[in-house]
């Protein structure tokens, strides 16, 4: 499992690789929440391209960040989810509230145009 972060102005990009379960979810929360609290982050892009597995703990931490961002007027974008991961995200109805993009580049373009 690995987590990488980078910034584009008021956008935070998190790239996750490995299995997104309760262990990863906890590390994700510990990495992202201080950033959301301290900095003026308006957009959080989550690149799931390297994620081979996700369960409701991984899903839960994504939705939790979505709620947190919504309260402060921010937005969440999901990029590069592979089919099995996408299946789980869709089963939860996530695509009704969060935009999915094929690649991180496409997500960042959408952020710029928003």
């Amino acid at each position: 499992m690995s987590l990488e972060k980078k910034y584009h102005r008021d956008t935070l990009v998190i790239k996750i690789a490995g299995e997104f379960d309760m262990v990863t979810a906890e590390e994700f929360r510990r990495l992202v929440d201080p950033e959301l609290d301290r900095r003026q982050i308006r957009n959080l892009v989550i690149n799931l391209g390297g994620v081979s597995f996700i369960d409701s703990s991984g899903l839960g931490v994504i939705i939790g960040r979505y709620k947190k961002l919504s309260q402060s007027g921010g937005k969440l974008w999901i990029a590069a989810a592979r089919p099995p991961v996408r299946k789980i995200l869709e089963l939860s109805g996530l695509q009704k509230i969060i935009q999915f993009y094929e690649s991180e580049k496409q997500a960042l373009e959408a952020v710029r145009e928003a």
Partner: protein
Amino acid sequence: MDNKIRLEFTGIGENVALARLVVASLAGQLNFTLSDIEELKVAVSEAVSNSIIHGYNAVPSGIVILEAWSDIDSLVIKIVDMGKGIADIQKAMEPAYSTEPDRMGLGFVFMQSFMDDLQVDSEPGKGTTVTLVKKISTDAGRLNSSQN
């Protein structure tokens, strides 16, 4: 081939991956499709995470037991904890119901939608046993579905 395994492990997050790995390996010996194996991994991940998070309140002293065996046409997996148990099982299984504010209440939903059968036995103060059953698709069945 008659195969039965029993895995006992300390209830820490790191062992959820171990439980998935063991079930995936067992399912790989049988006639499951890759997509079946993905679904089994999700269901097992949910049940084991629940034992650790809810059953033992994330205190890493509890033991979780995973038992798995296959009969002719299905794989049966039991996840057992000796944790705090569930008072109202029906309520617990409702979609979006969770006793933890930052959780989704989707664990049982995923187990239900990915397995052919799901059984929950629990007693407050004693612990919880979740039984998951996944049918092995016959070759004929798989042939048909790939022709569709």
